[in-house]
């Protein structure tokens, strides 16, 4: 009963391998054409699990015996419309329970794909991949194992995203890519692009040599087959590059290693393992290299970082349908948007609303000079994007024309949606809302972009507090994918549904959060920052503290983040949180002084892509650095790097426990999603709660896990 083996705890969506004979033009013989097709529509891409891979292998074994018998002249592999394959079935991977099983997962892919890779050597019959659509991970590797590749002009994406989700391209990619496109481009394909979440477009793939020919989509397969026939008859020869010389290989690997050490460090193993495989690809025999891929893949499949990555990947995917959102039908139509304020945040929002909602947007500020500045921002942004080809000239014109500015609050009268982005002072915001209520219709939605103030209090004195909802954007508004939608005490389902509808049209992911200080992202982010400052105040050297969180693999060190958000903004939110949440949010006189003096806290990065180090000169603001282990200025032990990390993780655990108790969000998943999209915390941490679970903090601090064992880690106790 192999079907019922304990490994199969999920239902595989099987990708079938259908084989049909095709007559090559010009009497070049028969091409056995393999179509990968899971039999489902275009919303469900092909993926590879054990059953599908076994089917492919069986089909290719038949093809091989036909090649040996001289019945066929070529083999082709293509996919169902729009897809070769999106890669391995991630559900299948995360259901693997032990190392041996994980090794088998790699081996089965190699066993099938190697038939394609070895056929020409053993039978003289060449193999072709006709990349007619999306080819990611194992979907691209099936093509890489073939002798030749064509790509359709409309293929959505080609790439090896594995290192972005805690894996390595383990079905031949790590070995084949550097040999095919050179070691420098291989680092880009296997490490850089996945880190930036940027797969290749067909023309790019052709340019770097991942594919050999590109044909227009309208008759892609026909032209690919004709091209294949010409390769078979020798009319077309496809040049292959020499292996890069050893010194080049070493230099590229060395530079990539230095970059990884600086950016990734020890936070996750996959990029380093991938780089090791690339390093070895030059001289290794294929079988040895593939065995090394199997081993690396298995180690990573059995790593918590990889499991957390898949959890995070799925969270982000599922996040497109926000949890807790009311019936979308309740959303009010929006025909005119008002933005209160014309500062940087307001102008960014005005631009985005005009761009994505396609309705008139009016920005209002107190004096004409500010209004003009806001409008200038909109105009300059439109021109910049049009200049880069990111907007058509017509779209740019439309956006600029649809945003108007005024000093007269009366111009909001016809708006059915008004969002305020004025200074973060409660009294001011309440005044604005009260004024607005006298102007706009009782049905109009009032939104606030506050980052830390109570939305409920803001609405408290209104005749219609139910129309007030928080919509918290992150800076820069255009780039940041997250919006926190704040459900205040009286917020109606209509207001909430409208906020979600707006967010969706703006192409942001929304997380629904309760009206608690700092909501989700700022509360945790500023807590972390405050905790680091606190350690410095007590005596930990600034550079030690700055690097202390490196094992988490955050997008940047603490002071670089502070520099990015602006020390004044950081201080303001920190202070506001402390007022609301009490002393567990640390105060930092040093930070106050930095803000007061306007001191820049970081130096320039030593090279592009490397972190900006803290400016050691700012140590002076905090007082002398003290020796770790001794008693510090606060009367507490001066922490070393590990101590700072421990303090941060402990306090994070406590705070998340409190947030869940307070009902800021109903489950750890929303916290993780918010931190991934709002703070850029890495997939390998799963956001944050998987990390706190696997490092034991949640059990130590709270006496319980955030997530059940096995959800975002390698299950420790088999059920």
């Amino acid at each position, binding site marked *: 009963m192999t079907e019922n083996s304990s490994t199969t705890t999920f239902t595989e969506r099987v990708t079938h391998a259908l084989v*049909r004979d095709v007559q090559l*033009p010009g009497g070049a013989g028969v091409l056995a054409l393999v179509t990968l097709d899971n039999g489902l529509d275009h919303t469900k891409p092909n993926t590879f699990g054990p059953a599908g891979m076994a089917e492919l292998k069986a089909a290719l074994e038949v093809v091989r015996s036909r090649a040996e018998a001289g019945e066929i002249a070529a083999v082709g592999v293509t996919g*169902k419309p729009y897809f070769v394959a999106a890669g391995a079935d991630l559900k299948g991977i995360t259901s693997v329970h032990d190392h041996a099983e994980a090794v088998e997962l790699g081996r089965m892919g190699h066993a099938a794909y190697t038939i394609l890779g070895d056929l020409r050597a053993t039978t003289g019959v060449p193999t072709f991949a006709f990349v007619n659509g999306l080819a990611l991970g194992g979907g691209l590797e099936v093509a890489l194992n073939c002798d030749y590749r064509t790509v359709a002009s409309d293929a959505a994406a080609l790439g090896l995203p594995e290192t972005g989700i805690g894996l390595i391209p383990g079905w031949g990619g790590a070995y084949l890519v550097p040999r095919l496109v050179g070691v420098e481009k291989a680092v880009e394909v296997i490490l850089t692009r996945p880190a930036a979440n940027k797969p290749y477009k067909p023309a790019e793939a052709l340019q770097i040599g991942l594919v050999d020919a590109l044909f227009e989509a309208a*008759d892609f*397969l026909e032209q690919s087959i004709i091209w294949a026939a010409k390769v078979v008859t020798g009319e077309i020869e496809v040049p292959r590059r020499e292996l890069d010389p050893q010194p080049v290989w070493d230099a590229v690997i060395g530079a990539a290693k230095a970059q990884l050490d600086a950016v990734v460090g020890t936070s996750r193993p996959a990029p380093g393992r991938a780089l090791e495989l690339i390093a070895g690809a030059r001289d290794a025999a294929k079988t040895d290299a593939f065995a090394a891929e199997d081993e690396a893949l298995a180690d990573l499949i059995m790593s918590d970082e990889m499991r957390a990555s898949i959890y995070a990947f799925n969270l982000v995917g599922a996040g497109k349908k926000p949890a807790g959102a009311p019936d979308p039908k309740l959303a009010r139509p929006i025909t005119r948007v008002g933005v209160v304020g014309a500062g940087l945040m307001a102008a960014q929002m005005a631009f985005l609303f005009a761009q994505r909602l396609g309705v008139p947007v009016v920005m209002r500020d107190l004096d004409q000079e500010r209004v003009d500045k806001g409008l200038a921002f909109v105009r300059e942004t439109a021109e910049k994007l049009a200049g880069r080809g990111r907007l058509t000239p017509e779209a740019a014109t439309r956006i600029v024309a649809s945003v108007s500015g005024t000093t007269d609050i009366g111009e909001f009268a016809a708006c059915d949606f008004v969002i305020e982005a004025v200074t973060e002072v409660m009294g001011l915001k309440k005044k604005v809302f009260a004024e607005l209520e006298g102007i706009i219709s009782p049905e109009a939605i009032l939104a606030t972009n506050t980052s830390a103030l109570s939305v409920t209090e803001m609405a408290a004195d209104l005749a219609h507090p139910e129309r007030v909802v928080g919509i918290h954007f992150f800076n820069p508004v255009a780039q940041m994918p997250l919006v926190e939608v704040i459900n205040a005490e009286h917020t109606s389902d209509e207001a909430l549904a409208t906020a979600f509808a707006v967010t969706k049209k703006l192409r942001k992911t929304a997380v629904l959060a309760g009206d608690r200080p700092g909501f989700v992202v700022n509360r945790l982010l500023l807590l972390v920052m405050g905790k680091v400052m606190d350690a410095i105040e007590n005596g930990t050297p600034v550079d030690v503290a700055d690097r202390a969180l490196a094992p988490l693999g955050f997008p940047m060190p603490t002071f670089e983040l502070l520099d990015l958000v602006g020390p004044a903004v950081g201080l303001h939110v920190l202070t506001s949180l402390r007022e609301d949440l009490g002393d567990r949010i640390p105060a930092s006189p040093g930070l106050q002084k930095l803000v007061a003096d306007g001191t820049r806290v970081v130096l320039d990065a030593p090279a592009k892509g490397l972190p900006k180090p803290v400016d050691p000169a700012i140590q002076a603001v905090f007082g002398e650095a003290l020796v770790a282990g001794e008693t510090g200025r606060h009367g507490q032990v001066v922490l070393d790097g590990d101590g700072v990390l421990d303090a941060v993780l402990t306090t994070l655990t406590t705070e998340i426990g409190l947030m869940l108790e307070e009902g800021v969000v109903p489950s750890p998943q929303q916290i993780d999603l918010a931190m991934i999209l709002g703070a850029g915390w890495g997939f390998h941490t799963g956001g944050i709660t998987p990390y706190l679970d696997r490092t034991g903090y949640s059990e130590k601090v709270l006496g319980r896990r955030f997530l059940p064992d096995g959800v975002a880690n390698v299950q420790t106790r088999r059920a």
Partner: protein
Amino acid sequence: MTAAPETPRARRAVRDVVFVDGARTPFGKAKPDGMYAQTRADDLIVKVVRELLRRHPELPPERIDEVAIAATTQQGDQGLTLGRTVGMLAGLPQSVPGYAIDRMCAGAMTAATTTAAGIAMGAADVVIAGGVEHMGRHPMGFDADVNPRFVAEKLVDPQSLNMGVTAENLHDKFPQLTKERADRFAVESQAKYAKALANGNIDPDLVPVAVRSAELGWGLATADELPRPETSFESIQGLRTPFRPGGRVTPATSSPLTDGATAAILASGNVAAELGLPAKMRLVSYGYAGVPPEIMGYGPVPSTEKALKAAGLTIDDIGLFELNEAFAVQVLSFLDHYGIADDDPRVNPYGGAIAMGHPLASSGVRLMTQLAREFEQHPEVRYGLTAMCVGLGQGGSVIWENPHHADYAGHTDEEN
């Protein structure tokens, strides 16, 4: 009263029109197990248009002035102004206009003659004309809302909407057209096709089409699916007569239901010369005529009379005939009228629709493409005829001149 002298400035000369090239998809069986069952109709015609452009890199796509694509049932994947959508889907510049056209079976023929007329009067220099019919997806007359007046006022015999019945009617009308003659003609059509295929006269016109089947995966259509080369006179004697009990018309003497697409490039003679486009045929004249719908298959006789008259030629001047074989009896009625033998070698040298199929609105251009090849092989022939019958009682005829003929006078102003 004498006519006033013409003002040269206000008149444009009628220009020569040449047939540059034509191509088609392999024709498929219009059944659920046919090779195009899961392939869109518009995709079929797009592939043909793209192949024509590939074969003629000397033709800058922006010089195309019109794309006229015919279909009999213009809905679904044959709807939405085919000529325009096909141009866009084929990657032609957006500046190239297009339209859809319908004259049932003579759709592609009408696309060619209508655009040719535009070329002749100077409205266009280069055109693409073609047709598509996916009869598997769009059975003839499907969903048509026939005006009740046709029946109430006895405008047509309701039975004449069934093409097979009209073929039986021809047997009635011309008793000398026996079932045996029809059977022998059909057998010969299959044999001539098989020979033409073996001699390499079919494949050069075919555009391979990638065909997807959810059950079988991707494949490639490279050959006509319908011919039955094994057909013999004896083998078709027992066949049923689906259009009339005890009738004479059988599946063997009828063109089968077919999926397929055709397209051609036509150009003004001058512009063809300017661009270096080949001129495979010169258009001499054309004509369309109506006949009683009950004997629609007889249509090519009066339409040919019209075309001959316009050309100042007689039937004896025609050296090659490409006649669409909707039904064997319908071709025989034409041959009998002109006193041409059933097995005259000038008629359908490559076989006809009985063998390869008749995707209604596509067939007209297939006749032209084949005549062009036959011209090349027969420089001794000066004029050829493409003709076909049309449902509801019409015929269409186009007369072409062979540029390979010794007496050919050219197709440019200079030569003329």
